[in-house]
């Protein structure tokens, strides 16, 4: 049972961080379908820090890994910013391309790196078992993970930024009615860039969290199993509101955690449900949830529409 709670919190953290990233981008008016790709690049950034500096002292290691993930995520989100804001490209195509590009780029890069280090090694795997211990803290049977803290801080920061600062309110105005925002002197392009870059930060953090809690090594060929899209579903069900996103992420996190630990829980193991069903469960639940909630969606009104100064 402790294990279930632990896994639920950890997957909730991942989904919440990434969904908050999506939330920032969409509130500024850009649909970020490339979150999955940003997660991959963020995880790569963090993993590279662990690969090249394996002997950093604990706290420095934590900060360096988080910084690596943030920087990679932010840089990668620039691809979306340039295309969607400056060149008014179709945000769906660009996001999809980013997802494909991230996996291919990460695979090519990691394979090249591994092969350079050892000519017989053609895998796309980075190991970080030893480094991972810096992030864990045992409290009784419960394994506290530093990423849980990151997620909570991320939630508080997101809530305060969006609703309690001038910047956040202006950002949201750009997603609702950019022309009106522009007319009172807000630079819509800058605000949208800010939204996209912040989503890069959150997406990168979510990515490194995902790979660190899932395994002790990561094979970059597989991407992040559609978690970026699950996070988008969380965001929609959470009605673009950070607090609701947190609750929704808990629900999704619980179902995802069940897939990982059901065999250890006697009651569930006795039901003899095939493991495939547990693996599918988060995706099925999200479909059902979307079907029930999408009708009355409170999406930012101008999301997905490139801003054109000359348009009335």
């Amino acid at each position: 049972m402790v294990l279930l709670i632990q896994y639920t919190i950890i997957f909730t953290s991942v989904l919440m961080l990434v969904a908050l990233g999506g939330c920032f981008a969409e509130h500024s008016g850009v649909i970020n379908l490339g979150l999955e790709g940003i997660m991959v690049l963020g995880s790569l950034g963090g993993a590279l820090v662990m690969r090249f500096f394996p002997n950093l002292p604990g706290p420095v290691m934590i900060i360096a890994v988080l910084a690596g993930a943030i920087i990679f995520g932010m840089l990668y989100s620039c691809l979306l910013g340039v295309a969607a804001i400056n060149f008014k490209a179709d945000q769906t195509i660009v996001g999809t391309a980013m997802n494909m590009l991230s996996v291919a780029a990460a695979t090519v890069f990691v394979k090249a790196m591994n092969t350079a280090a050892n000519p017989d090694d053609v895998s796309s795997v980075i190991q970080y078992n030893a480094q991972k211990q810096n992030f864990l803290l045992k409290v009784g049977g419960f394994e506290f993970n530093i990423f849980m803290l990151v997620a909570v801080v991320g939630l508080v920061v997101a809530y305060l930024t969006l609703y309690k600062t001038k910047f956040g309110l202006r950002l949201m105005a750009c997603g609702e009615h950019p022309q009106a925002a522009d007319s009172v002197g807000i630079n819509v392009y800058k605000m949208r860039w800010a939204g996209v870059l912040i989503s890069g930060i959150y997406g990168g953090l979510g990515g490194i969290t995902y790979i660190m809690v899932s395994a002790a090594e990561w094979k970059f060929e597989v991407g992040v199993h559609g978690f970026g899209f699950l996070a988008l579903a969380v965001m929609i069900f959470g009605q673009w509101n950070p607090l609701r996103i947190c609750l929704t992420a808990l629900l999704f996190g619980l179902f995802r955690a069940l897939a990982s630990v059901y065999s250890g829980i006697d009651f569930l193991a006795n039901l003899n449900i095939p493991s495939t069903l547990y693996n599918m469960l988060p995706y099925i639940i999200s479909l059902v949830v979307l079907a029930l909630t999408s009708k009355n969606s409170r999406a930012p009104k101008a999301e997905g529409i490139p801003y054109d100064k000359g348009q009335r």
Partner: protein
Amino acid sequence: MLKKILKNDGFQTLITSLLCIVVGLLLGFVVLLCINPTSAASSTIEMIKNFLHFSSTNLRLKNLGNTLAKAAPLLMCSLSVLFAYKVGLFNIGAAGQFVIGSCACIYAALAWHAPWFVCLLFSIVVGAVYAGIVGLLKAYCNVNEVISGIMLNWIGLYTTNALLTTVKDPNSPYTLHIADVSPGSILPTLGLDKLFSNNKYVTIAIPLAIIIAIAILVLLEKTKLGYELRATGNNKNAAKYAGMAEKRNIILTLAIAGALAAMGGAFLYLTDYELWNCTETAVPAMGFNGIAAAFLGGLNPIGAILSSYFIQHITNGGAYVDLKVYSSQISDLISSLIIYLCGFVFFLKYALNNAMRKSEEKKAQKTPVDLEKGGKK
């Protein structure tokens, strides 16, 4: 005269697509240079050469056949994406529809020993129903088709793994060879294999895919149904007020798109060219490459034939890069770069047309003066 050609939409598409390819290849070359400068140029050339890598004509033909055998399913996936896109829907679920279609035909072949046309039909029906779910959710519950499509991709993958595990080879994670278990389920070759130095993977799938591409073009451009579907895509509400069943159109579109992608699965697996790996953890790239091919082909079925072949050509060519220093995924990198660049195509066309319009306006301002001068004479 030159202006007329420049203004032609098809010509603009061709130019911008070629530009995307050139820039994509250049960027790929730069990536190779960064990894290892010594064999970057030769590897890029080998990748572009693909089957020309071999010196004997027989081997060249055989490998061209292999590329074609995989280009046909890719074309089906890209038709699925472009058909839905013409109706304003982004069918990212093509990947899952491809998977579930593969699952249906492999299962029908291995478990029921059904003849090939039954396997193919079964795939089509399953694919249409599967994509129909996305359509239903979109039409009645306003669920974004991209997100529901992705969810169904993963559900499809897990279902396929579970179902095909019941008919797999007990000693490996792969399914059994269809040719060994049920030879009647393999697509007929109609002598096409002879043309490619007896490459048995060259089947009727290839001409069939091209015929379907043309049929899709006719359906979209020349029929009432095609017109209604495109009208729904342009403006759902306008179509509704004009008396079109917009909900039915959305569901129908996705069902057709699903059938196309599922047929792609059947075209690949019913040739026995590949076996399904029942421990697969990632959705196969075929459906996503279909998106690349659809946009690179300028969202035109005929363009899709060319772009599908091109994407498959460099994907297969990826196997010939210097594998001691590079990985074959470099071709995936290039095709995803190409899609990213395709995002800029609309902007490029817009800029081009804008520039031409401006120069014409300038001319138009000058001409009245010239006419007056002419009048005085």
